[in-house]
């Protein structure tokens, strides 16, 4: 029975992703931490799908599609920002601050 261990790994992985978003200032690494959180959620879905029926795996399919769309648009935004101001440090990207 792998449900408990899988959910435990999922919890720790998700918290690592949150800690990474708070810890780092590099925009691309923040994106990678978001991917880490999405993967932790996927793991929880797959683990519960084993107990509660295959619909959980269908949700993982949708999460992957959304993650791909998010990565494409997010990295395009990073490229556009870099062209405007050659830095990825979110500390220096404060154009909207009054």
């Amino acid at each position: 029975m792998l449900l408990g261990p899988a959910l435990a790994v999922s919890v720790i992985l998700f918290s690592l992703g949150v800690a990474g978003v708070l810890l780092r200032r590099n925009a691309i690494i923040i994106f990678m931490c978001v991917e880490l959180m999405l993967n932790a959620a996927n793991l929880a879905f797959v683990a519960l799908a084993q107990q509660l029926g295959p619909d959980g795996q269908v949700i993982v399919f949708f999460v992957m599609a959304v993650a791909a769309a998010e990565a494409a648009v997010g990295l395009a935004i990073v490229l556009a920002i870099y062209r405007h101001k050659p830095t990825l440090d979110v500390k220096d990207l404060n154009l909207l601050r009054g």
Partner: protein
Amino acid sequence: MIQAVFWLFGALALLGGLMCITRRSPVASALWLVQTLFSLAAIFVLLDAQFIAALQVMVYAGAIMVLFLFVIMLLNLGRESATDMRGWAGRLVALALGLVLVTELWVLVGSPLSGQIQLPAGTLNRVAQEQGVVGVISDSLFRTYLVPFEVTSILLLAAIVGAVVLAKRRL
């Protein structure tokens, strides 16, 4: 046996995640994240989700991480640079919030599943043997979730157009 294999790949996934958020170079971070993704694919196989595991390797470790590495290389971030970690206050906040989140979620997942909605053990395995590994998810994907599936295609189209518009120098 399965437990041992699970914990091996679980430990590899957690190690990859930890290294991903602590390495200074973005390339190293990305490669450690690839390790996490591959370990998760192995765990998916152990959890009777073989098709999802194949998707994980092809879509995540293949396509998405190549996109990340491509942008890192394009912006020439591979060289060692000054650290982008926050100061000690930020690290403390990150650590504290991470621990709080672990505790909260731990309590949440500790609550038992209701026996009424739980399938008998090995059901997914039996369905996979009857309908094939892909049949397990394609059946509900193209019946129950047909509309979300079509909406996803529109989402992907919008993402493609959005990425081109955002990254193009001059329209």
